[in-house]
């Protein structure tokens, strides 16, 4: 389980440093880095927090991953989760924040 940081998108705002429950980020030379990829819990707090969509989440190979990336954009009423396949195909799932889980 881990996150992938697109360095070209990162602006060094440190929001990921602030929010990770494991204190796993450091910003060096205005770019975010994860201290140790193995230590990520996969909570996606950083993915949702990053204003640049620079952080994506991926399933590690030992968890059955197939190389896709997942990022999220958020507005007042919803979270849009975008899954990018290795071939570049995008699938979006929109979750309404004001709607309870059906189950």
């Amino acid at each position, binding site marked *: 389980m881990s996150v992938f940081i697109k360095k070209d998108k990162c602006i060094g705002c440190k929001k990921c440093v602030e929010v990770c429950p494991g204190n796993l980020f450091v910003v060096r030379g205005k770019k975010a880095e994860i201290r140790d990829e193995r230590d990520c819990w996969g909570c*996606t707090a950083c993915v949702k927090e990053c204003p640049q969509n620079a952080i994506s989440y991926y399933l590690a190979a030992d968890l059955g*991953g197939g190389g896709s990336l997942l990022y999220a954009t958020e507005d007042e009423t919803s979270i849009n989760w975008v899954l990018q396949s290795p071939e570049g195909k995008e699938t979006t799932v929109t979750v309404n924040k004001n709607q309870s889980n059906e*189950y």
Partner: protein
Amino acid sequence: MQTAEFTADILVIGGGAAGCFAAITLAEKYSNLSAILVDKANIKRSGCLAAGVNALNAYIVKGETPINYALYAENDAAGIARGDLLLSMSEKLNSVTAKAEKLGLVIQKNPDGSYAARGKRNIKINGENIKPLLAAGVHQAKNIQVLNHVNIVDYIKDNGKIIGAWGIDIVREEIVFITAKAVICATGGAAGLYRPNHTGFSRHKIWYSPFNTGAGYAMGLRAGAEMTSFEMRFIALRCKDTIAPTGTLAQGIGATQINVFGEEYQAAYGNTTSERVFAVVSENLAGRGPCYLKTTGITKEEEESLEKAYLNMAPAQTMRWLETGLTPSKSNVEVEGSEPYIVGGHTASGYWVDINRKTTLEGLFAAGDVAGGCPQKYVTGAFAEGEIAAKSAASFALYQTSVNLPEDVKKSVVKQIENFMENKNSENSLYDENSLEEAMQSAMDEYAGGIKTYYRYNETGLREAKAHIERIEKLSENLRAHDFYELMKIFELKERLLLCQVLIAHLQARKETRWHCFAENLDYPEKKAEFDKYINSVLENGKPKIILRPLISVKDAGGERV
């Protein structure tokens, strides 16, 4: 070495479900008292609730009563639960839920305005933002100061009374001393004692928060507090690999468990929490695995709702479905057991407290997963205990004079930290915190009932485990850190090594098998009436001393079945 000092009437350690709720209670009811809420991360997304939660697992739905809830929890724990604590928690479940709704939590409603139930004890919510909502509630309060990124290491004790705590600020790289008239511990349970399902790259893809390393238990033990029921470990039955919750499938859409032959097997094993794990283990051992939750055949609509529900709490599961195309309507969801944890919100491990959530130490209160005797509390039970502890701590603080940081404590802490930061020379040290953590987890896995032995152990094995933990503890004395993050990792390892020691002593003391998997002793495979007792412990001269205490049932505490 930089230091910083803070003081307040009340100190709350850990800003998760219980700690945030305690702070919110202090803001509402005791605005004349000042409080500090300190967390190792940022309370916006710290602790168990970081990704969100799937439902409120503890709620008194229509037709049920708090007494029934307490009796259910007591039965699930085979009697090893405190009736008085269960009742006082259960009575508050619905009022704290109403408060959470006021904070902004989205809860599904029936046409008549009541909350929509999921099974007998759960209600349906959108729990993705539960942590940011709690944090916002705390930040609104004028009398609460929040200290984020400060990892608390130990209590400060004076004349037998807890008068604060000290820790390390990971971001500012300074030592932080906090004094207070009363202290509430709410640091959650302990993960990372046992080798997880995935050991390499995904070593932190576990159920419980890997960042809750049992600091509160360890600090309490070192300060002389009494602990209860560590031997009642919790093992989570979860979706394979993603370790995502199964309740949404089992209670939500009514998925049953089937083995590789498609047979439903649960009824043959019973239906308590530990029996559900045992069922899967047994089916696998009998060659009838893998085991699955039967989801095939659900409608497209149901499937889409499930995909959204999992994004709100365990995004890995939805990702796996979408990425592989093996969505739940097409493919059953495999289940597996996690490694064991110590977590007082699910089982009964933790501080031995009275009905006011006061610990055995003067000035110290406990709430949430760190507090023992009160299983099945989940998020709402943690809220309830946070509220109770806040009221008790406030009443206590009102009658205390102000406290001062003893100079000698400060000096010895600074010296200790300087020592850890000195002479880090990786060429000269054979071991680091990562390799020692791995050694600890494999010793526990092999000899103290981890995944490898299907959670079973025997007396010889426990002795082996003890010897390994003692050896690793010695090695850990030579660890040194480059920076405060590494320093935190060393403290986390040290607290877990202490917990392993105490856990082994508890497992040795319960010479019976009361719960399959949670504490399955192969030398004593039966349940015995002589162990209708709480197994408690205190640390004496650095070694665990076991104390047996008589049970206080729900009935003893005044609860009859209604």
